[in-house]
């Protein structure tokens, strides 16, 4: 069951545009895909390695800013700009992760320190006016071009972005899936379930925690690179704690113990407020109510309802 659902879901997502007529529906689903990709990469760190990171929004935002700045101000090609952006995010995550894990920060303390680093990066973005345009944010007008054997197409229009976003989501999903299916995934599980025991059995806790954190954050960066070009706008809000919390909420709503759960959570939390026509305030209230409801009534999330753990741990 849990193996079939993702395949069926992604396959139907490929053909779904045949049925979709309105651009606004496309936009909602596209946002859903992008945020779901963030949620999937976050769950690699949180659900599978057991580290509650608040660095995800920062990773996402830094990549978004860097790609946009390289393309708009320095005239780089979009595809070339992705490389330094991801490298920068990876290095930042490496530095933050190395500090946190070297000093053996756990649980709440890890959450607080990553939150502090994330806030410091946000403060830099907000105040570095000459480069980032401060609190006003940046408009991104450039449109990336994609070269296909049939000719080049510019990434614009609702339908094209739908597929780009789906591709990012599927790529993120497959990377996480391959990693988790390998020995690396088992080391992550060892860290999550019992760190001391894992260490005794010869798992290099520091290395694998760091690997999970850097990989997850870099994947968030990948989404970030594209996100700004889709919305055409980047603001410091992207790096805020609120953004990180939204991702946490998506993962929990979908289900922490699965790779596909966050996809459901991300899609639902993005789409739901739009599906029901509400004022901004009522929307936030509904959002809070959903979050509380999930935690208290359905702790294993929506996907948890479909799947039973294969082994009792």
């Amino acid at each position, binding site marked *: 069951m849990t193996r079939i659902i993702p395949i069926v879901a992604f396959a139907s997502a490929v053909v779904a545009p045949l049925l979709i007529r309105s651009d606004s529906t496309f936009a909602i689903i596209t946002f859903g895909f992008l945020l779901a990709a963030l949620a999937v990469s976050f769950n690699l760190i949180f659900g599978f390695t057991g580290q*509650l990171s608040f660095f995800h929004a920062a990773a996402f935002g830094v990549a978004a800013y860097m790609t946009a700045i390289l393309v708009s101000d320095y005239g780089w090609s979009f595809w070339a700009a992705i490389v330094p952006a991801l490298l920068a995010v990876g290095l930042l995550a490496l530095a933050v992760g190395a*500090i946190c894990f070297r*000093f053996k*920060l756990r*649980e*709440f*303390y890890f*959450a*607080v*320190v990553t939150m*502090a*680093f994330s*806030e*410091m990066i946000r*403060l830099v973005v*907000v*105040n570095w006016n000459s480069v980032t345009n401060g609190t006003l944010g940046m408009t991104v007008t450039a449109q990336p071009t994609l070269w296909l054997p049939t000719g080049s197409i510019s990434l614009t229009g609702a339908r094209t972005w739908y597929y780009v976003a789906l591709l990012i989501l599927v790529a993120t999903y497959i990377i996480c899936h391959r990693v988790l299916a390998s020995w690396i995934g088992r080391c992550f599980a060892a860290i999550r379930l019992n760190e001391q025991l894992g260490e005794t059995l010869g798992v290099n806790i520091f290395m694998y925690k760091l690997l999970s954190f850097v990989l997850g954050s870099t994947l968030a960066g990948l989404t970030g690179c594209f996100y700004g070009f889709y919305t055409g706008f980047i603001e410091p809000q992207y790096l805020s*704690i609120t953004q990180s*919390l939204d991702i*946490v*909420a998506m993962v*929990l709503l979908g289900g922490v113990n699965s790779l596909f759960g966050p996809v459901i959570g991300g899609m639902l939390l993005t789409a739901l407020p739009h599906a029901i026509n509400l004022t901004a*305030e*009522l*929307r*936030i*209230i509904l*959002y*809070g*109510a*959903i*979050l*509380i409801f999930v*935690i*208290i009534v359905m*702790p294993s999330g929506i996907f948890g309802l479909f799947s039973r753990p294969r082994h009792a741990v």
Partner: protein
Amino acid sequence: MIQLVIGQLLNGAIVGALYGIVALGITLTFGITGIVNFALGAFMMLGAYFTWYGYEMMRLPYPVAVIGAVVLVGLFGLFADRGLFRFTRNNLVNGLLVSIGLISIIEASVLLIWTSTPKDLTYVLPGSLRIGGILLPKIKLAVFAVLLLVIGATYLALTRTWVGRAAFAYSQNPEAAALMGVKTDRLQTVVTVYSTALGGLGGALYASLYSLEPTLGAYYVLKAVESAILAGIGNTIGALVGGIIIGITEGIGSVFLPTAFRDGYGMVFLVLILLFKPSGLLGSK
């Protein structure tokens, strides 16, 4: 220059005491229920708005408005505890997320009812005292005195009364405390409600110093969590000390370093403490 520094020092101490009272709530709740209640910021904001409503709309005297607001916020805390936090005891992540859901609900409701227009009642106690060339607004001194008094009283209550000692014992060793006849569930509720009331008091006093916006709580609760960790979580007087240290670091930091990064100075300090002395500045280990 000297005057500026001393002024910032005093100002930092007063703001720090506000961080401290919320931090006290954070520390107490964490010690007894094992969760970090970020919603204390939202309760603080509620306290501020209730005070504004009582003073400005219902024409109550300021102290009465403050007491009314604290009681009301305490009641909200009771509902929140019985309805929500009861289910997240000792589950850090779930508690964090429930409090975040609660924050969204409270903030959005306040926005709906009172809109985002800033409310102002900073004229409650005008005038200032001049002490050795430094001008200190009376209201700031009054607020500082009340905060010190309440934190001091809480400390005394924790060390001298039965409930306080039970709470202290419970935070040291839950099983042993339960065996000695501490009613766990009731104690946890009492502490959660008391913490929200403290947050409400912080907000009620804040209302007389700065103008009110529905988002004010988010900022203060982060500072409060920083303060609580700084001194070592679980340490009552430490919450106040931590708050004042953060307040002063920001105040002095913004004299000598760019003000834009004001919020960052406390954080750098916090990260260093967590890395090199994880039990906090006042921690024993």
